[in-house]
């Protein structure tokens, strides 16, 4: 009797696990369902440029009614001590201008709660609950092509400040993919060569901007004069031109080349111009620095002008930076900025830019408020940042041309601050097209690998670039196919 009763009423492990599994599955589905509907829009055909975004992006859609408080979240990818000091002030200015919008932000350089910024951001976009406004240090073209960002062309068309055409051409092109705009460049931060005036004068060389050589050969000769070698050891390097990965497109452009053709959507890495560029860089290593790449790298940290780097320590006479180097570099000696030299196949001096981009992720619930904030931060807000904070020149063409960074003025005087502002503003229209590839990070890694192989003399420049071209083009085609 007891056996029968037990067999009737007992729940077997198998039954129980089956029920638990079903319950778990149901719970999981229930948890996923609302999010799935939120992401549904970008998951259909995310990259068709001719299709409007599914979210309410039209500028004619009204923002929240006046008086109704709307809170938006802003994630910022970078953090400096100045961010904590100045961004709250800029946000407060925005909130004063738009009293119904409150901006919640966290200036940690990462997402709220920690983790890798892009990793968490992508997960939030995929899950359908992204922050309303984001900054990026990788180009919006790359994310926009993948359907991660909202196209803002309609919003720009009727904007008060960030109208179509109100940004410098190359920086805004870095936000575009197939005719659609997926973000705004707040800064342009054009590049330059910074020289140590004391070293130049000690070597009997003019440190005036106008006297700086304008050709590759001229700069190499200058670097040779400034290089100091004792007992076969490099004590001071004149110039180490290959160190800044973000300027690779500029160097290519200086020799009439290009790495990625955004209009034709193809890589052009293994051209004669680019092979000649790597041979030029390699000639520095061989002719000036003893030819051993790893031994040379043990001397100092080459690249940029920041404290701790070779230039800042007086171990390198010239190095490259963006406009921000004038303030953030904290260079402890007298310096000057000059333009990049032109290669044998080039026609004019060109520069590059590395913006702080603003974008609206796909799936934002308050696109109009998010747009107003992003627009402000990339226009008037960034002018405040430029004047009160870092010398990171605005990409907004309507920024006052006579604005200059107070920190530069305080340190070097008004005339110098004005002169630097004018130098970079005048140079800005001469920027190469860059940051336009949908596989930007992959291509950068691949190009750097090719450069590493060339400098280690594992491959010749032609071999390395041919390999990089093949890899990047294959990846590009694979990626484009995935967009179809």
């Amino acid at each position, binding site marked *: *009797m*007891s056996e029968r*009763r*037990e067999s*009737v*009423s*007992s*729940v077997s*492990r198998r039954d*129980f696990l089956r029920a*638990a*599994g079903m319950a*778990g599955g149901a719970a*999981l589905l229930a948890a996923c369902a609302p999010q799935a509907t939120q992401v549904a829009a*970008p*998951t259909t055909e*995310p990259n068709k440029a001719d299709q409007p975004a599914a979210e309410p992006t039209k500028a004619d859609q009204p923002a929240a009614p006046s008086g109704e408080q709307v809170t938006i979240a802003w994630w910022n990818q970078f953090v400096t001590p100045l961010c904590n000091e100045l961004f709250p002030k800029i946000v407060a200015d925005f909130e004063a201008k738009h009293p119904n919008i409150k901006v919640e932000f966290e200036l940690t350089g990462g997402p709220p709660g920690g983790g*890798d910024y*892009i*990793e968490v951001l*992508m*997960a939030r*976009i*995929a899950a359908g609950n992204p922050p309303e406004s984001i900054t990026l240090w990788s180009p919006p073209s790359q994310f926009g092509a*993948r*359907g*991660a960002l909202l196209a803002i062309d309609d919003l720009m068309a009727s904007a008060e400040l960030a109208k179509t055409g109100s940004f410098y051409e190359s920086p805004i092109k870095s936000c575009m993919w197939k005719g659609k705009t997926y973000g705004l460049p707040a800064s342009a931060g054009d590049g330059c060569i910074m020289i140590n005036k004391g070293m130049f004068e000690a070597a009997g060389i003019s440190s005036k901007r106008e006297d700086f050589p304008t050709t590759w050969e001229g700069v190499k000769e200058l670097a040779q004069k400034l290089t100091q070698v004792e007992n076969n050891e490099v004590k001071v390097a004149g110039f180490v031109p290959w160190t800044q990965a973000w300027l690779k497109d500029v160097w290519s452009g200086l020799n009439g080349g290009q790495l990625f053709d955004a209009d034709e959507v193809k890589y052009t890495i293994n051209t004669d111009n680019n092979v000649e560029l790597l041979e030029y860089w390699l000639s520095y290593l061989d002719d000036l620095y003893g030819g051993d790449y*790893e*031994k040379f*790298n*043990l*001397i*100092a940290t080459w690249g940029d002008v920041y404290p701790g780097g070779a230039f800042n320590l007086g171990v390198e006479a010239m190095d490259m930076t963006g406009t921000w180097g004038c303030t953030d570099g904290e260079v402890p000696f007298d310096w000057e900025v000059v333009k990049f030299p032109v290669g044998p196949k080039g026609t004019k001096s060109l520069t590059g830019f590395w913006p702080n981009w603003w974008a609206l992720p*796909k799936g934002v619930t308050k696109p109009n408020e998010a747009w107003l904030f992003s627009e402000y931060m990339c226009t008037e807000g960034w002018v405040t940042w430029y004047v009160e904070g870092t010398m990171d020149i605005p990409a907004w063409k309507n920024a006052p041309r006579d604005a200059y960074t107070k920190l530069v003025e305080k340190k070097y005087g008004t005339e110098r601050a004005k002169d630097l502002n004018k130098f970079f503003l005048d140079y800005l229209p001469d920027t190469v097209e860059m940051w336009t590839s949908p*596989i930007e*990070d*992959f291509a950068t*890694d691949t190009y750097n*690998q090719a450069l*590493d*192989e060339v400098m*280690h003399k*594992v491959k010749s420049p032609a071999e390395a670039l041919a*390999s990089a071209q093949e*890899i990047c083009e*294959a*990846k590009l085609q694979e990626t484009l196919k*995935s967009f179809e």
Partner: protein
Amino acid sequence: MTASLQARPAGLKKPGFQMTRRTRESLTGYLFVMPWIISLLVFTAYPMLSSFFFSMTEYTILTPPNWIGFQNFDVMFSKDPLYWKSVANTVYYVVLSVPLGLGVGLGLALLLNQKIGGIGIYRTAFYLPGLVPAVASTLLWMVLLDPRLGLVNAGLKAIGLEPVGWLKSATWAKPALIVMALWGGSGSSMLIFLAALKEIPQSLTEAAMIDGANSWQRFWSVTVPLLSPTILFNLVMSIIGSFQIFASAFITGAGPLNSILMYMLHLYRYAFRYFNMGYASAMALVMFFVLVLFTLLVIRSSSYWVHYETSGRQ
């Protein structure tokens, strides 16, 4: 209880669902483990199964996955030039770091099993590196191994040796990672070895001494066989951990000529830098099967070298 139920008149029987005591106990047990089961299903089993599925798809996180069959595996094995580089780097790392880690852990445990004053301080000191987060310990070692300013090269110079490029050298970058792993990872294996050493009966060692065994013979014929189950455990865990090296490789980067581009770093880049989650899932699947294979091989081989005190050779 059964008797009382049998004695109860049919009319007084409680209505509804009746459970026996055994069923109730089982249910209670399941309820207690339910949080773990749910966590296993949601956070481990579901992602694992999803990963199996994604490995056969083109999946960019932001768009629905497209089924492409074994294409990711084809790319992995025949078209991705860095895949085999990452495999070679990881195998090199595993082959050197696993035996070295076990050797150092065992050596430290033997030293710290001595009856000397202040032994607790030494034990703590040697275990502490294992508590330092991987990111912090990697950053610390990057400073120590700095070619120009690092203490390690300063020490080499002090004894008349040439300084080494460490993480800036294609030749020395992998050994540098292994040194980092030894410093951070030996403490935990040492602790497990130490606990096992404490379990070895003194009588066996004394009996060997009476039989005339010298210290090496006592170690090799008494200590090692009795430690073998612990060695097996540490070996399996070390193999799994070494194949999955990530934090230090992520922070130091791929190194010159991709000399420290480890498998998991390559996988991570594809997943979160190049947004190719399908390919990354395929890489994860291959790693999973490799780990299963190695674990099975080690466990299968254990019948030849692991000694269990209670039942002789297993």
